[in-house]
């Protein structure tokens, strides 16, 4: 028994010794920058290596889900080691700003490089890469002129032919949120009821929806653009194409992955320098190109696959609307019976 206790204490001690990261965080040097990131495996993106090469500043990543990264940052409070929060979905950025986790940045470079509707009105966060959430259709079984708007997917002709993510998906919540801002709740609820009446097949991933369309399980769906680009990169003859809806109306819904400076950043200058760097043309093509997103900086051309899809009108409403109306969107989905 005693030996067992000694062994336990020893083991725990050893692990604590191995794992104690607090001293590292305390003796923070100016030459390192800590990024809390929920851009999944993108932590190893070459664009960050380019930043280190250029400035000599090392970047340390803490990767996690949106929710986990947010909670960690919130609970650490003033003693957080985060300098930059990097995340996907405008709703998440909006929520972090609302909780006071991000601080405003006045930067001429950022206001010049990032269009106003892709950043926070108070400059607490900046969209760096853009994805459209649009209608995807089977080129084998659907003609583009059969499609027109998001709401038209509620037309009975799509009964049993529509594939959707559930309303628990944050990208769909943002889509509904921005539509509510533009068209008001009654119109959006009518639209969602139309979708539900068509008895959509719920599928748990954007990639899986695109594969389902290609395989013939459904004919139309709504996904982010980069998932299709990824599949097309591997299978160029995939019989799925994007359709740009609402071109006569408000335009296609776009969302961002973006960054903000932590309210308690130890290396605030470095944090601003990193976000500024990410908005420059040289970084934008690498950042957005590698993940098949549209560059937020309008001076930069998108990847060839995306360019091939042509240009389209996007929502003029700021992406912040996604966060502002997200709760309303979820409740609306519940009322409309949208799973």
């Amino acid at each position, binding site marked *: 028994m005693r030996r067992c206790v000694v062994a336990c204490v020893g083991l725990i001690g050893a692990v604590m010794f191995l794992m104690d*990261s607090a001293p590292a965080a305390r003796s923070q040097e100016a030459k390192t920058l800590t990024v809390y990131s929920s851009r999944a495996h993108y932590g190893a993106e070459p664009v960050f290596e380019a930043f280190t090469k250029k400035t000599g500043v090392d970047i340390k990543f803490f990767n996690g889900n949106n929710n986990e990264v947010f*909670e960690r940052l919130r609970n650490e409070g003033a003693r957080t080691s985060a300098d930059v929060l990097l995340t996907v979905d405008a709703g998440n950025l909006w*929520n972090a700003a609302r909780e006071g986790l991000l601080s405003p940045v006045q930067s001429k470079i950022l206001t010049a490089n990032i269009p106003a509707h892709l950043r926070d009105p108070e400059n607490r966060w900046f969209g760096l890469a853009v994805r459209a959430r649009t209608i995807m259709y089977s080129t084998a079984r659907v003609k583009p002129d059969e499609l027109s708007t998001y709401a038209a997917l509620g037309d009975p002709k799509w009964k049993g032919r529509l594939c959707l993510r559930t309303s628990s998906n944050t990208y769909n919540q943002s889509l509904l949120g921005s539509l509510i801002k533009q068209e008001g709740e009654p119109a959006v609820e009518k639209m969602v009821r139309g979708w539900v009446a068509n008895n959509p097949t719920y599928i748990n991933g954007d990639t899986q929806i695109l594969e389902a369309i290609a395989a*013939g*399980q459904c004919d139309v769906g709504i996904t982010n653009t980069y998932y299709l680009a990824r599949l097309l990169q591997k299978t160029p003859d995939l019989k799925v194409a994007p359709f740009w809806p609402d071109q006569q109306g408000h335009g296609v819904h776009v969302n961002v992955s973006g960054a903000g400076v932590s309210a308690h950043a130890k290396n605030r200058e470095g944090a601003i320098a990193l976000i500024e760097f990410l908005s420059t043309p040289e970084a934008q093509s690498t950042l957005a190109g590698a993940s098949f997103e549209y560059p937020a900086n309008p001076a930069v051309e998108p990847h060839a696959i995306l360019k091939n899809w042509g240009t389209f009108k996007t929502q003029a409403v700021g992406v912040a609307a996604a966060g502002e109306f*997200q709760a309303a969107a*979820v409740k609306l989905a519940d009322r409309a019976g949208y799973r």
Partner: protein
Amino acid sequence: MTSLARPASAWHISAWLLAGLVSAPIAAVALNLLLPRGDVWRHLADTILWELTWNTAWLLAGVAVVSGTLGTALAWLVVAHRFPGRRFFEWALMLPLAIPAYVMGFVFVALLEYAGPVQTTLRAAFGETFRLFDVRSGWGLVGVLSLVLYPYPYLMARSAFASLGSAPVEAARGLGLSPRQTFWRVALPLARPAIAVGVALALMEALADFGTVSLFDYRTYTVAIYRVWFGMFDRVAAGQLAVVLLLWALALLALERTQRGRRRYAQAHGRTAADVWPRLAGTRALAATACCTTVLGVAFVLPLATLGWWAVTPGVTHPASFRPLIMNSVVLASVAAVLCVSAGLLLAYARRRTHSKGLRFATEIAGLGYALPGSVVAVGVLAILAGTDRALADLVLRISGYDIGLLATGTGLGLLFAYLVRFIALGFHPTEAGLSSIPRSIDECAASLGTTPGRVVRELHLPLLRASLAAAGLLVFLDVMKELPATMLIRPMGWDTLAIAVWQMTSESLWREAALPALTIVAAGLPAVICLTWLGTSRRTPGETAS
């Protein structure tokens, strides 16, 4: 008398302290009940609350029946029959435990969905209109979860059947009962408490599951908690929903206790001599082997083969180095296993030695972390850690003018605490079940002979509990290997585990890229399964010399 009373109160105090420490994060969640109820509750009641309740109940009922039946039947088959391969299946049937539920989920969804290989082949053979059942359904979910969770009842039932002792079985057979009648009338009633523990653990896991149910687009309470928390940004209502989940767990545990009734199950300890059991011959032996092979094939070989096939797909990229990931996972899981089993043993002991209703209730509460979604527990733990840390650092700053920073938040210590809160139930329940089958007369007898309580524990109970402790340690080890939300939230920077490597890929729907890390989780869990099985069954225990 005094010599007995003093150590008893030491048990008491340490058990209270431990239970209090482990319950603190759960209490932090429960405190949300004191806050005003927002309109979210009315909204839920008007819309999806009944669907959630129905779905959760259906899932629990389904998993209870399927995993309970499968686990008990397989355990009876391998313990009470002799057929080719029996000794292999006896431990191999536990292997699905090493596969994370979400991995099992995405393997089966990917294989069986419309665009997957099975349905594509069937359509090619039988025409475009051919449809298989929909894998993304309640049935599909119950099937997959039961395949991962049946090892809990199996593990508990197997050790219960194995330790029945020869006497009741020989008596039953001597009275002319057939093997089947022996099962229904003797073995099953005696093993019932152990099976109930196994099923309760499986159900708590099902109740807390988020990853797998979301893969199947099946909405349970857990999904609602996330929806309210991160969709409606209402953390208070999310905490209140989590309390409802706690009530479900308490109900489950109460149900489990009723299975034990007022009787004290004290069993003669010892492995039943193998020659009591019938040797199966001919087609019956073949059927038994085929049965075990099928379960093992579907629940283990098939998912592994699929992962292997994905991992070698051309063009799939893999993490640069697995060594740090494996190291982190294995070290964390081993330390957590020792920690949770020791803590569970302490609580189980206190429960055995106390008549205090308060303490018995406290031990029950302490185990509830297992029925809460990992994220909810982790956020509760983080709130406690960070709160204490901040207060401490502020205090030191004021006194000494030096900022010590956050000491526990984002360190290994904090993470181990989170594992303790989440998994102490796995250390506690199997140990307690094992302890309750040791007759109290042994303790009393030893005490009357002047043996100190410490010696009773060391020389009598620990050897008798060897199988239970090994089982508990195995469960904790494997669960920590698979654990995701708490690890993600509380781990020190740079301390990625295998489960995190899997998540980084699956979060982007890159299932093929996730295959190799997932396989590594299973591979790293295998030595533990083998080692602890051996520890649990190999040597004869002192109790046996009596039988």
